[in-house]
């Protein structure tokens, strides 16, 4: 599965609907990005999401950091800090249980998308 696929299945365009639909998926998006990128820092995550979704989905800063800190407190993410130029940069990476949880969350997400497709568009099937 490529990174883009998470968003290929989106049912409502964020500009038409609202960003609320994405809210519950924020953790899954973060975990998936970290699964394919080894380690990332907060700003990099916001940029990567913007790039992958061609600017359609913007993760707000006020939501990103609380989500990262929660995943860290739950033991799904580990942190590394490096001095980059004149500032400290905090990198996040998946722990072993984080990698397992990513697989679970992606499976749940697929299931959710399938169910939603059946509900909103019964004739169209992803399979």
């Amino acid at each position, binding site marked *: 599965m490529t990174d883009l696929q998470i968003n290929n299945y989106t049912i409502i365009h964020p500009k038409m609907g609202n960003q609320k639909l994405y809210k519950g998926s924020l953790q899954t998006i973060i975990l998936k990005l970290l699964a394919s990128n080894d380690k990332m820092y907060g700003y990099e995550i916001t940029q990567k999401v913007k790039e992958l979704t061609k600017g359609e989905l913007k993760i707000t800063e006020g939501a990103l950091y609380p989500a990262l800190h929660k995943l860290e407190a739950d033991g799904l993410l580990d942190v*590394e800090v490096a*001095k980059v130029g*004149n*500032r400290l940069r*905090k990198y996040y990476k998946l722990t072993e249980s984080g990698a397992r949880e990513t697989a679970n969350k992606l499976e749940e997400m697929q299931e959710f998308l399938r169910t939603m497709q059946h509900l909103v568009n019964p004739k169209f099937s992803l399979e």
Partner: protein
Amino acid sequence: MKLTNTHIEELYKFTRQHYVYHYDVQSELVDHLANDIEEISEASPKLSFEDARDKSFKKFGVFGFTDVVEKKKSQMTKKYFKIIFRFVKEWFRLPKIILTFLLFVSFYKLQIVQNAYYVYVSIYGFVLFLEVFIIIKNKKRSAKKFKETGKKWMFKEIILINGILNSAFLLFYIFLYFMPNNATEFLLMGNFRRVFSAIFITTILILGYITLVVIPKKGEELLQETYPEYKLV
């Protein structure tokens, strides 16, 4: 525009002005703002540093950094209670479980003595007093350290102040609502409450020991585990 050291200092000051007082949270936000400011000024080179900074800050929404700080605090508190739980578990494994059991049995047996209530209240009062005393002492020490280094660490503050305060409140309310409030009532307790009281007073001692002695003693180790940058700065 590549940000200079002065700009970075400015950004630390900016986070402080927006109610972020802990260095660990500040650093992450400063790096974020700095990256964003560099990108904003690349797109519009005429924009001043201050304007680019404000533009970046606006992206955090109307509540600014408040949500980030609040959520971080609750995650850190959760982490602290997980650590307490880790140490409490030790008291239910060999060899410590023998001591736990002995404490429980002694407190339970003690209840037949006329003045048992006062022994219970004294232990409870002593632990609570010690907690308040240590909180005040640590608060002063931490203010002094902040003056020297200019840095505060959120988890350190939880270990030395807020965490102890939380457990003091917890004990206070449990005693207030679940324990008898006079010696006569204490003697008339039913079996269930007698067992509960003995468990409660044993817990007070174990919890007090863990929050006041064990965790602060391991403080440096726990801080390094939490903050990879702790040694770096």
